[in-house]
């Protein structure tokens, strides 16, 4: 039996990688992938807790997260395509209209 701390450590590392990728990368698709990485890190933690505590709720949450992630991917990729069309670039540095 693998102790839960192993899973949680892995989850934390994956989440940390996701955060770092999200903050530091400029390519919008990479940022998108970083978000997915964070979501899956959380999923891993949910599943680990679910098994360790013998409760099903954690796994139900995972399904929810997967559904949200799928919806997000659909909308997000649509936005990415529009940005790519309008700006001829995937660099988020150039998408800075969100200010006063």
């Amino acid at each position: 039996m693998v102790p839960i701390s192993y899973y949680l450590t892995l989850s934390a590392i994956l989440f940390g990688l996701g955060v770092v990728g999200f903050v530091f990368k400029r390519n919008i698709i990479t940022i998108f992938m970083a978000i997915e990485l964070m979501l899956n890190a959380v999923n891993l933690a949910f599943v680990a807790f679910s098994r360790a505590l013998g409760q099903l709720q954690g796994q139900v949450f995972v399904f929810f997260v997967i559904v949200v992630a799928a919806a997000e991917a659909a909308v997000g990729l649509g936005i990415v395509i529009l940005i790519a069309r309008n700006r001829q670039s995937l660099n988020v540095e150039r998408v800075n209209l969100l200010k006063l």
Partner: protein
Amino acid sequence: MFVLEHLWIIPLLPLLGAATNGIFGRGWSRAATNSVALGTTGLSFLAAVEMVREFAGLDATQIPWVHSYFTWIAAGTFRADYALQVDALTIVMLLVVTGVGWLIHLYSTGYMADDAGYRRFFSYLNLFMFFMLTLVLAANYTLLFVGWEGVGLCSYLLIGFWFLKKTATDAGDKAFWVNRIGDFGFLLGLFLLFRQFGTLDFAPVFQSASAMPVETAGHGVLTAISLLLLAGATGKSAQIPLYVWLPDAMEGPTPVSALMHAATMVTAGVYMIARSHLLFLHAPAAMTTVATIGMVTAFFAATIALVQTDFKKVLAYSTISQLGYMFLGCGVGAFSAGVFHLMTHAFFKGLLFLGAGSVMHAMGGEQDMRRMGGLAKSIPWTYGCMLAATLAIAGTPGFSGFFSKDAILLAAHSGPYANAPLYWLGILTAGLTSFYMFRLLFLTFHGQARYDHHSVHPHESPPNMLVPLVVLAVLSVAGGWWAAPHLFGGTDLFARFLGPVFGVPETAAANQAGSELLAALLGAPVIAGLLGFLLAWWLYIRRPELPDRIAESLSGPYRLLSGKYFIDEIYAAVIVRPLLWISTRVLWQTVDERVIDGTVNGIARGSEEFGERVRRLNSGNTRTYATWVVLGAVLLTIVLVWMAG
């Protein structure tokens, strides 16, 4: 008992008239406006007469008749009802206000016939009647104060009636401000009354006050209350030091001068003092003050009236002077004599002003007596009525002014608060009164005509202006006969009528003194009046060139008098200008602009600068936002962990 049960009808009718004419009257014919204005006031008068009939059937125990209609204010222990009260004093005031008021309404239909503001004028006039009737019917000081302020408002509106004239609006402002000063004292007096007695209803206040000892030491709470109420009365009734607004108030239409600034409104102060007589009787120091202020004002105003050349200004100073007599009457304890003079004065001074309006009507608006003269033949009816009023105010035996003025002087001589210097000043003033009134009469109606015959064609006024003149002339002659039996050793019927209000007739003491003394006392004012008449006759009929020569040789005193002792200028220098300076420099330019505006603008500018700094955080760069989110999440996690640990 219908009207006594429904006293509110009397003041409400004129209010109805004011509202109808003021709100719905646009585009109505003069006849319709007249019917509403005169109809409501006339009904009010009839209701008052009917009320007097019902009042006569009441038991002595039911007087004063107080009827409370609803609770108007209830706050903590303070309670003020819409309560109306009737006693003999109210009846006198009520009949004078509605009766003379109606006559002046009638007169105005002629006098104001060509004025563009016809409807507005009658609306204001009716509104005034409402407030004046509220004032005299009120059964507590709170309601009295409502009427008091209301008539002040109407006075302001009607003085500035021709509001395109700068002098008229200025005069209205002046009347309003000067009255504010007096009303401030009045209000303080009311606060003190409430603190002392816990109520402002007349009956309990007077009951508690009469149970208190007389403050012979000259100070105490009743003295303070009385003096503060007196401050209010000096404002409303134009006494020293607050009389300055009344001469300026002559800027208003002449019927207004007759109704408000001679017959009714300015007597509100006398009424209030008479109403509060139980407070004043317990404060001898206040009584002396009332008498002194009254007599000094009477003398002072009479001297100014001696040299004025404006017809209405003479009458204005004469009004101030006569109001001074009423104050003297109250101050020497002869309250019924003061109220008696109030009534007769309403007749003859109302008549004098209406006559003045008739003369101005005849002369095309001229007010300067130096450009009149010899009018007796052109306007005989006006002349006859003015003659009756002049004889009455000069105290000619048999005319109304004789009885009322002499009742006051008699009380000043031998009443319970007799005061010899004031008595002799009163005699002197009676002589001055006679002189300036006959001067006015002679300059206007006698001698040679000094106006331009080509441009001015004097003509008699229409009947609707003459009828009020004649009615008031009859009253000016006969209005004083109530007191006539007194001369022959009988009782003064007027004093007996007011007896239930003021206690035993004050003249009872004089009765014991014997009729010989009485005759001697009554002789003195008559002789003074006769001397005044002879002097006026000598100067203005016999030797009309003399007055100018006297004015030249006595140029100092003459200028002092014609400049009205320069009181207006002194007030301007001592009070108005420093106040203006403080208001402009300190309150406006320092406190308002620097302190208040500075604080408000400072807060606004600070917020703006703070916002300008914070704005830079909003760069539009998504990754910066993401960094903030991560940092926030980290911080939140640390806090949660720390709290859980």
